[in-house]
């Protein structure tokens, strides 16, 4: 019975879905074009600022971006060792 219905009914048009998906995706991709890698830049600058005060392992600085439908979140995860030394620059101050 389902098969029969499927034969009779016209398949729903998928082109409008394709069009909408493309428009959303390209609006996003065009915004990024020509810019340096945003997360890379953020990570380097955050690392530089924090390193002025605490000695850090650069590999323990993780910056993630999660793009949601309405808002995006930026997650910065910096692991600081418990016996972290203050950096020389901070100590000298």
């Amino acid at each position: 019975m389902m098969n029969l219905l499927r034969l009779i009914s016209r398949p729903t048009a998928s082109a409008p879905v394709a069009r909408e998906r493309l428009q959303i995706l390209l609006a996003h991709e065009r915004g990024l074009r020509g810019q340096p890698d945003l997360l890379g830049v953020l990570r380097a600058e955050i690392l530089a600022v924090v390193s002025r005060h605490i000695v850090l392992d650069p590999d323990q600085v993780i910056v993630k971006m999660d793009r949601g439908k309405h808002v995006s979140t930026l997650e910065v995860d910096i692991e600081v060792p418990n016996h972290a030394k203050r950096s020389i620059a901070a100590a000298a101050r």
Partner: protein
Amino acid sequence: MAKVLVVTSGKGGVGKTTSTAALGVALAQMGERVVVIDFDVGLRNLDLVMGAERRVVFDLINVVQGVAKLAQALIRDKRLENLWLLPASQTRDKDALTDDGVGRIIAELRTKFDWILCDSPAGIERGALLAMRYADEAVIVTNPEVSSVRDSDRIIGMLDSKTVKAERGERIEKHILITRYDSARAARGEMLSIDDILEILAAPLLGIIPESQDVLRASNVGSPVTLNNAASAPARAYTDAVRRLMGETITMTVPVERKGLMRRLLGRRAA
């Protein structure tokens, strides 16, 4: 004045080589002096589509490296006397192509031809960049399908930033060529429409090449579709596109196959 036209797409398999050959032939048929250059180093195919695969002696890289003179590497078409092919190398490393070398060759070709058609490799790497580097205009070959449209958008971004013209602050003229278009499927809403594609890519339309068996038949025998069957639907669409490139105003239509009764009956069921 010579015009350098890059045929590009980003995505592979959308019909760049087929279109380069068909457009080159159609331009030559109108009396223009044309050279088609294959930039797909390592994966050359324009020679095969043009039916000149057994006549390749020297190639683009031989000329870049000074091993051969340009005149030695150019292959004249046996059917159209004002059509020439500059093949890519099949064996060399693609890094052998240099910006300076390509620039010198294009400059020399500009003095000898009316049209220089550069068949770009797929992708956005060095070969694709060099194919578009010295272009005055670009034909962006796009299938009515999401991945192809996305890649075309990416390529348009590169045309606007990485070409010599763009770096000089000039505008590179862009033309969208839609290939493998099936009007029946588009009418049923199963395929992105022409309007959708043009709205998304925001560039003018050069032509609509219908999906057709004539295209495969032409490449099978090494004769571009505009030469092999000039009356076929895709050939008429390519010829119209060329006339638009030359500045004529021609109403945009999707040429249709002239089907026999049997094929029409069978075709409807298979669609």
